[in-house]
C-alpha cells in the first residue's frame, strides 16, 4: 500500500543521515531521516514522524505525482556563551519520501505538529469503481 525510497535501521538509536547518492541537497549541513510509525485503519493511514526541533513554521510537506515529501528545516542553535562539551546527537534538517497509492484521497491529507512530532492523516478515497449488481431478468 505504501512504498518508500529508503529503509531505516530500527535498532540504532542514533539519527540516520540521508543518503545523497541520488541527488545532492543544495542546503549545507546534515540532513536526517526521521523515524516513523505508520499504521492503517479502515478509514486511512496515519504517519507519525519524530522530528525534534520542528514546529509548524519550518516544516514543508509536498505531494507530487503520488510522492509525498516531508522536509523539516532545523537551524542549529547554540546557547550563548556556552561551548559544546559533549555531543551524542547532531542537529540538522529532516527529509523523507513516501510513495502513496491511489487509494489515498490526496485532497484531504491533514498534517499537525506538536512537541517535535509530525502527524499526517491520509484518508482513504471512496472507491472510484462502483460495483454493479446484476439481477436476473
Amino acid at each position, binding site marked *: 500500500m505504501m512504498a518508500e525510497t529508503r529503509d531505516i535501521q530500527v535498532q540504532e538509536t542514533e539519527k540516520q543521515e540521508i543518503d545523497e547518492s541520488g541527488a545532492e541537497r543544495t542546503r549545507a549541513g546534515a540532513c536526517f531521516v526521521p523515524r516513523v510509525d505508520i499504521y492503517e485503519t479502515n478509514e486511512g493511514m496515519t504517519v507519525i514522524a519524530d522530528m*525534534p526541533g520542528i514546529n509548524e513554521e519550518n516544516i514543508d510537506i509536498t505531494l507530487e505525482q503520488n510522492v509525498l515529501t516531508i522536509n523539516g528545516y532545523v537551524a542549529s542553535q547554540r546557547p550563548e556563551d*556556552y561551548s559544546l562539551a559533549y555531543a551524542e546527537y547532531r542537529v540538522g534538517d529532516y527529509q523523507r519520501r513516501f510513495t502513496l497509492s491511489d487509494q489515498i484521497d490526496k485532497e484531504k491529507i491533514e498534517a499537525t505538529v506538536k512537541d517535535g512530532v509530525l502527524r499526517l492523516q491520509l484518508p482513504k478515497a471512496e472507491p472510484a469503481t462502483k460495483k454493479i449488481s446484476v439481477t436476473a431478468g
Partner: protein
Amino acid sequence: MERLRREMNRLFAGLPTRGSATPNYPAMNVWANEDGAIVTVELPGINPEEIDISVTGDTLTLTGRREAEELAEDEIYHRRERIHGRFTRTFQLPFDVETQDVDAVYQKGVLHITLPRAEADKPQKIRVTSG
C-alpha cells in the same frame, strides 16, 4: 582548542546506564562554560510531566516514559521505528550543581536543562598582594 574539547569530552563521559532497553536513548548534548552547563535532550512527543529530572551533587538523572499509541483492533502497523518505553539516563558533570536553581524547559520536542555550577564549587580567585 582541540585539546580542550578532548579533555571536556573525557570529563563529561556519561556513566553507564542501567535497566534500560535502549541504553543511549534519549541522546543528549552538553554545553558548558565556567558558570555551569546546559544539557539538551531530543525527546519528541512526550508529556513534560512524565519526565523526571533529578540532580544530586554532580549527577543528573533523567527518567521517563514514551508511550506507544494504542491501536484499535482493526488498525495494523506498517512501520514501527519510533522508540517507545521506559528510559533512564545518568550523567555525571565535572562540577557540583546548585540544585535549587536547576531549570528545565521543553520546547519543540527538545528538553533544555540548565544546571548552574554550585557557588562553593567555583574556582576561587586568590589575590596576590605584595608584602
